[in-house]
């Protein structure tokens, strides 16, 4: 499984969150929004000005800036192959 950050994940491809590298308020916020390790994630699109990203997790859709998406590591490809 290749580990990359969420910003590197191609749009429309499902992946698995492997790590959320944040702490304190930011971590709490990311968890509130459903960024849990081991869960599926997909980048749907980017905003017209290229940032932020529109991301889909199990608990719903979330907008997240690239600077924060860099903190989320995903294992790309593994979910897509069945």
């Amino acid at each position: 499984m290749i580990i990359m950050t969420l910003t590197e994940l191609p749009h429309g491809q499902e992946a698995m969150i492997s790590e959320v590298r944040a702490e304190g308020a930011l971590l709490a916020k990311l968890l509130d929004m459903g960024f849990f390790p081991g869960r599926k994630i997909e980048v749907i699109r980017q905003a017209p000005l290229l940032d932020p990203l529109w991301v889909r997790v199990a608990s719903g859709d979330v907008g997240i800036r690239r600077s924060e998406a860099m903190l989320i590591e995903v294992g790309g490809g593994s979910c897509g192959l069945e």
Partner: protein
Amino acid sequence: MASNRPLKIALLGQPNCGKSTLFNTLSGAKQHIANYPGVTVDKKSAYFRLGDQEVELIDLPGIYSLSTFSPEERVSLAYLREEKPDLILNIIDASNPLKGLYLTTQAMEFKIPVLLVLNMADVAKGRGYRYDLEALEAQLGIGVILCNARQKSEKKRILDAIQEALKSDAPTPILQFSEGEESKNIAIARYEACEKILESVLIKDPRAKGSLSDRIDKIVLHRYLALPILLAVIYAIYDLSIVRGYELTNYTWPYLAWLKQEFVSLLPPEHLGAIPIWRDFGVWMANSVLALLNYLPIFMILFSLIAILEDSGYMARMAFALDRLFRSYGLHGQSTLSYVMGGVVVGGCAVPAIMASRGIGDVRARWATILTVPFLNCLAKTPFFVLVVSVLFVEEKALVMFVISTLTVMVALIMAKILSLTLLRSKETLPFVMELPPYHLPTLRGVLTAAWQKVWLYLKKVVTVVLAVAVVLFVLIQFPGVSKERQEEFDRSIQGAYERFVDALEGNSYQAALNTPQRVMALIEFSENYKQKRMGITTQEALARLDEKYAQIEPLFFKIVRDRSDKEAAKVERALRQIISARKTLFREVKDEKIANSYLGIAGRALESVTQYAGFDWKINIAFLSSFAARESFVATLGALFEEVSDGGVRPEEGIRTQGGYSALAGVAMILFMALTPPCIATIVVLKTQLGSWRWTLFALLYPLLLALAVAIGVYSIGNALELSAMGALLGFYGILLALLLALGFFPRNFHQTLKENK
């Protein structure tokens, strides 16, 4: 349970799950909004009856979890712990239950009964979701109800469920944690538990297609279409609320004018030689209130449209699309709502805009938004701009109006960036991680309720304050009044006018009926009233009716005013016209002198020593001072100051053009000063509640004032020194702003990032 104390029910849920809808459904119109002590979080509560029991319903702020990272969370946590409500009414979105259930498991840990409301049953059904409610109740150990809070018919079912739940015991928490467990692990365990519960109680129909919401977003958030669509939406908001709303005020204004007329007729009547001060005061107050009430149709439309944007989910998409742009200036995607309401394009109002800023999670961006929104185009400044532009820029009207409206946005963005790099540097910042809810069709009732609540808040907060200020202004303009000698002079000349009237009637058959000043005054009043009523009349039949009515009130007076065939009556009428005109001239002179001598006039003159460098004389200063209460009073005050002495029928534009003698460059200075001028009183009141400190409020008041003064003086002096034309000076300043805006937007490119690294 004791029935003498109201039961307390706390409404708990995340944003966008229909919490306010449920609150409105249960409570009706009677709501109280206050602040939680020390924080700028709304505390909304309402009372309603449940059987024979009084219930207090508390709407806790919308939160995702009960941790302690945001003020909303801290407030909710403290409330549940300290106030110990009798029931937690927990609402979650049935079409997207995972996140909501996460909060539910936390709500079950307070030893308080919990009732779970699965809202938006229709949307969930549309997505092919089916719940096994019995299994869910059994697994959680609390009551569960599936409903649509939007439908009023569901109210009884919800109330029954509440009554049932009040009798139940506090639930056993789903999860047990040992002391000192790491919060991240707790969160993960909680999340897993919720997933597991949902797996067993929620059956998803696999045939359900990809949602409609996704398909709409493919177009609405399309790479190239998104921004044009967004601009079109903003344009539509302005066209509907400002343009159409203004047209609507043409229909509502006559009713307000009628109201004023009725009110004025209750005031003490005018004397021949003077207007009683209470009458003056009453008219002044009526005008102040009317000026604000006149905006109600516009506000109602504007707030309704904004409620539609919010309810439908498009507002969140606007924030998503514009976050990148706003972030360059220290703001946040969520600032969009405040900026739209504040008047990005043509005109808005800072009061609701600042109130809307509380949705911005990022504290630094929220403060930057609050402190810069007052720069945006206030709706009430528009009459002023129209006035000055039509006096001084007849040819280039449209261009100048465009420059004004974009200039204010540029200044707001520049100041937001500067403030967030300097004074606001130490404020907490939270990145853009924002829920993007699916589209959702707003209901008419929901939209109207939301709009009305905002309008009502505006009325209560603003009208009371503006009235208080109107009283103060009245005093400052009326006192100390004209000197005794001058007053005697005025008295003598009105006496002279009366005597001329009496002389003209010598030997006239009407003389006996008009032999006292009181009778003459009655005739003046009769004639003025008749003229006023007649102005609104367009058809012959209506005129006949009016004549009949007035002929009955005072047949003799009516003859004088109307009968052209009676020579003697016509003679009286001529004399009457003379005395009326003499009176008007005199009153205007008294008024002018009163204003010039008043405290406000003294202040206006004193300020001349500074403002002369911007080309403002004391009259302009007075107008600016009085516009501090409400922007619309600028035009009114200036109009009063420049009324033609001989004839009141001239529009203020003409008066200023012919008597003012202001250069076009001074006009530019005025426009710039007004555009940047500090927030009005009503805005300051709201600023205080949102900033929570007088020191910051004072800052929010003073920095735009200094900036406005500096810009006005700078442009006027430099323009004069370089002998620039007015247009040249305005466009030159505009160019400088544009350059500054672009430079700040690109530099420093990632200051959020840099700051984080510095920490």
